[in-house]
């Protein structure tokens, strides 16, 4: 843009009026676009900024209308970690998100591969059922599922009712992976077959290395899903604080520190931070995944 700004000065002959209007219009557009950009950036970042600033205020100041801390109370974060249960919630969340992600990826890959590359009767029906499952609000089936896990298997008060189903394919992950796998040309698979690879070998040796970005996206989404899940832990873990996750525990934290917005905001920052860190390390896979979920047509 600076080139456009400088150009008229370099010109020996004065610019024609048409050139000058075009130039002025480009400049105005640049200013307009970037002011809007800055305004939008403020809208998106200020909430984070205010939350972070409040998390560093003293107890009394957090109740005032000040926006900037007078004293920087980094000790607030230590207080959050000292809260009974906080480390347990952290551990439970990592188990739920970590184990759930591994199980989902392992169980969803073969299903997605079959839906993408095998020809069989009922393939479209299966795909439609996968999409229906993906769109199903968890609340629709929660009553029978709760009765199943709590009354028949006696597993309520733990996260197992949320983790075990992930060993049987997750609809969203199957769908996303299938989208990814259809883009792999059949020639690679045929070549592997000619070389004498069985289906499983083809999947493991040929398809998986090529599908790495898709698998990364699925793993990320699933990790975030478990990290963010509130409804699941609310149904199955609420009766046992030893099984709470961060998303669920955060709310009770607010209850215990009713008026201490500073501590609640410190806890909020601690729940947000890991997700944002993971994002910075895996930005590319993530954005690719979002675009893959159904718009390239």
């Amino acid at each position: 843009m600076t080139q456009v700004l400088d150009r008229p000065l370099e010109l020996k002959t004065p610019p024609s009026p048409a050139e000058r209007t075009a130039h002025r219009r480009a400049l105005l557009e640049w200013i307009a676009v970037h002011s809007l950009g800055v305004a939008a950036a403020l809208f998106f970042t200020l909430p984070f900024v205010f939350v972070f600033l409040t998390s560093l205020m003293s107890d009394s100041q957090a109740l005032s209308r000040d926006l900037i801390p007078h004293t920087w109370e980094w000790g607030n974060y230590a207080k959050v970690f000292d809260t009974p249960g906080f480390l347990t919630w952290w551990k439970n969340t990592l188990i739920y998100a970590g184990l759930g992600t591994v199980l989902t990826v392992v169980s969803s890959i073969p299903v997605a591969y079959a839906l993408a590359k095998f020809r069989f009767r009922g393939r479209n029906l299966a795909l439609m059922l996968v999409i229906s499952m993906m769109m199903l609000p968890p609340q629709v089936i929660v009553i029978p599922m709760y009765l199943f896990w709590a009354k028949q298997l006696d597993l309520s008060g733990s996260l197992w009712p949320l983790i075990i189903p992930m060993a049987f394919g997750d609809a969203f992950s199957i769908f996303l992976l299938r989208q990814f796998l259809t883009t792999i040309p059949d020639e690679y698979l045929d070549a592997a077959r000619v070389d004498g690879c069985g289906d499983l070998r083809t999947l493991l040796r040929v398809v998986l290395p090529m599908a790495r970005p898709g698998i990364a996206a699925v793993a990320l989404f699933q990790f975030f899903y478990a990290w963010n899940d509130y409804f699941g832990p609310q149904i199955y873990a609420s009766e046992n604080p030893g099984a709470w996750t961060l998303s669920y525990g955060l709310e009770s934290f607010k209850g215990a520190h009713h008026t201490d917005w500073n501590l609640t905001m410190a806890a909020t920052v601690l729940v947000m931070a890991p997700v944002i860190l993971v994002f910075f390390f895996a930005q590319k896979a993530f954005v690719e995944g979002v675009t893959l979920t159904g718009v390239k047509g």
Partner: protein
Amino acid sequence: MTTYTLRAKHRRSTLRTLAFLSPWLIGFTVFFAYPLLSTVYFSFMHYDGFRPPEWSGTKNWVYVFEHYPLFWPALRNTLWLVVVMVTLRVAFGLGVGLLITKVKTATGVFRTLFYLPYLAPPVAATMAFAFLLNPGTGPVNSILEKIGLPTPGWFNDPTWSKPALTLLALWGIGDLMVIFMAALLDVPKEQYEAAELDGASPWQRFRYVTLPNISPIVMFAVVTGVIQTMQYYTQPLIAGKVASGVIQGAGTQFEPGYPDKSTLTLPQLVYNLGFQRFDYGSACVVALVLFALSMAFTALLMRRRGGLIQAGER
């Protein structure tokens, strides 16, 4: 002989398909088909979880539609959210997507900043907004007061609670921004050049070149937005809980929808009926209403060319 080997080959490939699909076949049966049928069954039963289920005909259905005081407010709220929140989200997502394609300086920084709020865990994001918008000491009202604007009660005022939720939803626009951005970059450049040669104004270029090209994506965003709104649960629940000051714990029961039923949504009713009132039968009725609505919009999504099912098949 040949038919025999052909048949054997066919059987082998069927077995192979079944083997690869097996995790999902089990998952589909145990975690989808069975509970769905079971939900239908329980919707005709009186069941409180202690005494054995008892046939009650259409009693639960009549109760939910005619006597349950939270059902119609929840449906009205959902309609409000579909009309206002979904529309604004699509318009804003498109606007931010357009903006990011025009920004030429530090594009990557802008894009990341715009995208980040989408990643904030819903409970944490709602907690943050409950703080930012709290009527007494929240930063938003402090600033509004300083510049002499009215200071609404936000999550504590029935007329402002849904606009406050909408604000939260607009903050997390990152997903739509990325989708629109990809679509906008796919619009053929020649069409813009041709329009410019014809002397089209920026608005005309948007109206006659951009919009027709991205209309399938707009449609996709609207329909998925509606489906997401049907499932809207964590944000309104947490916002209501935090604003009301009633927090989970032994002996406390939060009647969802604070303030004055204005944040009720259908999924919250399933929880309220099933896990607070122990009326599993009526909870299943609401669950089926939720199911019917979600599936209707999913069918709409699947029927559209360029929608979900064609994706990736080119």
